[in-house]
């Protein structure tokens, strides 16, 4: 009997799911967005593989893509791209951390201060 991976792969684990964000809709959207972010990273890795194969061999087959195994240097280059990518898409969390550690004033406060002569 064959199993249906479409239905089963994303099955819910037993145990009530915790929700964290203020609104469930936000968390639903975030979860969808992170899955899309994952798929973009997958596409980028495939593109990187294609570029490297073309650069080396001038032509490729899909089987070549499947067989591709990056060297340690190539893997580091690809890994560094993923690190940069995550830093970029999750930038807002970095800025919130920095805001926690700063004593910024609002532009209104600064404008008033600068007008005081």
């Amino acid at each position, binding site marked *: 009997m064959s199993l249906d*991976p479409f239905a089963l*792969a994303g099955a819910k684990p037993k145990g009530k799911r915790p929700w964290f*964000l203020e609104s469930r809709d936000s968390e639903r959207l975030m979860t969808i967005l992170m899955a899309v972010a994952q798929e973009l990273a997958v596409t980028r890795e495939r593109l990187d593989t294609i570029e490297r194969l073309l650069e080396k061999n001038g032509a490729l087959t899909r089987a070549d893509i499947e067989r591709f195994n990056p060297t340690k240097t190539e893997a580091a280059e690809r*890994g560094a791209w993923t690190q940069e990518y995550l830093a970029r898409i999750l930038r807002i969390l970095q800025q919130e951390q920095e805001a926690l550690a700063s004593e910024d004033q609002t532009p209104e406060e600064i404008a008033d201060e600068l007008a005081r002569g």
Partner: protein
Amino acid sequence: MNAPVKVAAPAKKAKLASKKPDAKKAAAKAPAYDGPPDYRVVGRHGVYPHVTHDEAARFNFLAHMNRHLATRVMPGVKLAFDARVEPAFKKTAKRPFKDRHEVRKALLADPMFQWWSALRRATMEQRQQAGRWVTLRQADALNESVRRLTDGDPRLKLDPKLSLPRYVAAIDHHCMPGSYHTELVSGDATGAANYDVGMFATTGGMLGLYNDGGGHAVVKWVKENLPAFKPKRILDLGAGLGHNVLPIAQAFPDAEVVAVDVGAPMLRYGLARAKSLGVKNVTFVQADVSDLSQFKDESFDWIQSTMFLHETSYSSMQKIFAETKRLLAPGGIVLHVEQPQYDPAMPLFEQAMRDWDAFYNNEPFWTKMHEVDLDGWMIKAGFKKDALIHGGVAAVVDPKVFPEAAKDSKQEDYGRKAAWHVIGARKQAKAA
């Protein structure tokens, strides 16, 4: 913002404009890559599922995501705790936090903790989906290759009548749908294969070639600390798919090794995996570790559990401790490998963070297990106080390929780092 917090001074602005860019210098100054290795370095044993290019890329992304959360986002939770969570609590309650649960509940209301948690949970769910997709799309072929390697083999002892202990039945551990035991079809091994293919993503490759860095760590510890120890029979409790016990079986090839677990898919896959790796001295037995009555008194020289006690219960733990005392031969040892206990000296913030997997990654007993006085329980089970063993181990991997947990100061993932404590005991040898 309630109070400013101290952080490292920002780096001085680089004088970029005044200097002409020098490509070679810039390249030389680029920080050395310190992220996870590529998924394709993971060892492929004989029943490892076929993983396509894009499926490997998905695990790569997830490994990076976990590391990013641990190194770049989680520090923000501590900043938020110091800057606003703790001061706000003290202001309202007019007292400090009394325990880790109060800390965790206060953190739950903070956006930094909320976002880190929501992302961490989503990453675990994505990891499960990714692994299950790999294994379920090839379920028939995978189960058939496992069947071919295990059919009629006396080293696979399944018990279809085994009733599932509550600690397994109540919840699917680490959000793994179907947990260790569910069989979607007769002879199913897909759940075990899913566990195997995705461990890389959760640990960022820290468990090494065959996700067996924990087992190698235990072997190294035993060889260094008990060089004369030559066990003839070894029992592994909560063996799962055998990834932690195989290095032990390989290190002591003349020993007879028994690996016990409750999940038939794990045991099937475990035996097939072991055979394909050339390991012949392990028998995989389906049983609840709370009842080891099928084994005779003093019939093992070494009883091992690796990251297992936190998935049991108080009653099972006490039975396990008592049974290990009964089952050990004089001079034999028992070793339990776990994350550190919640010692009173451990800050409440750290305890609360370590509890995350208990409450939000379906490991409920984790929180209870880590507050137990393990020494006291071992003594209650009959081990002598001066025969207790304490130690620390970190995953042993090939450092040319995999990141070494022992050397990773950047990532303290509060419970997920591949570095553990050892609590154990040696049973008194018979007087000569």
